[in-house]
């Protein structure tokens, strides 16, 4: 608590009567790169807008840099926000867009010029300084929007799905670039994403949200390997999740009698943990798809459907084949029953 730079305490957010975030507590250290991860509509943008001061919380507090900023107007918080929609000023050139905030600070013209040039340079847009946003590609606009926030040297930079509109290639480039910038400037950054791979790759810590509630907070390692709930496990690629009762697996169609050393809760496997070809259980191949390194199978069994994967080099089992498989106990992740799992 004492070393928290951004601290959200019992934050409750609503649009009119619709409560989107009932009660949120979160502490973020200075210089951290945080990913706010969650499915569409879970309240990520809403939370960011509250931190930025664009919406007033129903109740709760927002501390930034040790100061209570719950009621500080947005233009006095020193926070940058890169909008999901860029929110560039269409009537201004790239240069003027970046200079906008600096000019408001009444900075000397020469300093504005050098800062803007530096900012444009950082995002690789120096050659487009005189273009208007409408004459730029989506990716260029996104980078321009980033530069506009960066030159303000905010205490905290919020990024709402900063990479969502880029193509796969540019996305990877920008990922690296963002990380580099963050390390170089030491700015505390919170970025929103609903792509778990992006969160894993970039963040120091991941905040996983569901329906306005924080499901789990932790390092990428923790969330990937030790998801704390069925929802978190599902989100991080445990595609086979089965309830367990008295060491039996309960699937959607029935149960599987086996000896798992868990009494209750759920057992979860990644597809890559289940291989097809040998093992004590049987099922019919319903679908095969090639995914680069591995070949993925959808298998129908007596107790339900499972997803498995073999190395791509292994022999292919055609659709309709009866195959054997194993659910290895040692690679199962055990989720004890917790409150809001359904």
């Amino acid at each position, binding site marked *: 608590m004492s070393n928290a730079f951004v601290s959200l305490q019992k934050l409750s957010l609503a649009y009119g009567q619709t409560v989107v975030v009932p009660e949120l507590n979160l502490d973020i250290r200075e210089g951290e790169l945080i990913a706010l991860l969650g499915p569409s509509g879970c309240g990520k943008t809403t939370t960011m807008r509250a931190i930025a001061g664009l919406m007033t919380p129903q109740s709760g507090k927002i501390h930034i840099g040790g100061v209570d900023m719950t009621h500080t*107007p*947005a233009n006095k918080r020193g926070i940058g926000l890169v909008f999901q929609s860029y929110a560039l000023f269409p009537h201004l050139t790239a240069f003027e867009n970046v200079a906008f905030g600096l000019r408001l600070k009444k900075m000397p013209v020469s300093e504005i010029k050098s800062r803007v040039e530096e900012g444009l340079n950082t995002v690789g847009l120096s050659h487009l300084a005189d273009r208007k946003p409408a004459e730029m590609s989506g990716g260029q606009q996104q980078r321009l929007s980033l530069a506009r926030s960066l030159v303000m040297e905010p205490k905290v930079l919020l990024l709402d799905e900063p990479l969502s509109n880029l193509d796969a290639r540019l996305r990877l480039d920008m990922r690296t670039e963002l990380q580099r910038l963050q390390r170089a400037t030491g700015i505390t950054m919170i970025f929103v994403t609903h792509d778990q791979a992006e969160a894993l790759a970039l963040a120091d810590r991941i905040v996983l949200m569901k329906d306005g509630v924080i499901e789990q907070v932790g390092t990428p390692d923790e969330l990937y390997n030790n998801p704390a709930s069925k929802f978190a496990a599902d989100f991080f690629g445990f595609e086979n999740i089965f309830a367990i009762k008295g060491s039996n697996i309960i699937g959607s169609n029935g149960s599987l009698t086996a000896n798992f050393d868990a009494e209750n809760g759920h057992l979860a496997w990644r597809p890559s943990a289940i291989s097809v070809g040998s093992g004590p259980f049987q099922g019919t191949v319903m679908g095969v798809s090639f995914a680069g390194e591995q070949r993925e199978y959808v298998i129908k069994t007596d107790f339900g459907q499972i997803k498995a994967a073999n190395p791509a080099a292994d022999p292919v089992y055609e659709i309709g084949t009866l195959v054997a498989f194993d659910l290895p106990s040692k690679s199962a992740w055990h989720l004890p029953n917790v409150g809001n799992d359904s």
Partner: protein
Amino acid sequence: MTSKWTSRLIIGLTLTFLIGPFFIIIFAGMSAGDFMTFPPDGLSLKWYMKVFTVESFRESFALSLFLAIFGTIAALILGVPAAYAISRYNIPYAETIKTVVAAPIIVPGIIVGLALLRYLVVPLSFTVTLALFMAHTALVLPYAVRVVSSSLNNLRSDMEEAAVLLGCSRIGAFMRVVLPNIQSGVLAAFILGFVTSFNQVPVSLFLSGPGVRTLPIDMLSYMEITYDPSVAALSALLALLSVAIVFLAEKFLGFSRYV
């Protein structure tokens, strides 16, 4: 390709019906004779010249121009904030407010003029000019709100939020970010308002007094007395003025999408 010719014929006939009459008044005003006829008895520009020498035309033109310019400016001063509030905020009674502001479109102008005369000019000794000014402002207001609203709705509100986060005040964000991006809408609203106000007749039927008459009313009363082609000439001039304004507005603003 008969359908192509049918289509041209339909468009041609409709346009002739809509626009043809203006060519007729242009020529009727060029008559060399003293009475309106068509085709004119000989050609001259004397009626066009005469228009400028008629004292009452000059005065009423000045009044109409004053009302159109300042009435429209007043309507924009009231209308732009209202349009902004309606498009950005979730204000209570928004529907009622919209209905009230739009109401002058439905109320026939002649009734407006009469009502203002009976309840403002006579008992409260408002001057006729002031009453006219208010009536024109209220009449232009719905157009101003509508046109500016549609510009605002095309503008994402997160731009203002971005500006505020970069340090602008709320008013600053409006001036620096919103206004520059809706200026063609505001200009279009001004032109539409100006033309509506300038051409407005019924409101001023009752709202006129000694020396205070709008141009269309003056033309009507001139026609009752004299049947010379000067009204045709004046009509033609006004039509040409409107055409010029609309042409320029269309060229620079793409005006017709705002109508």
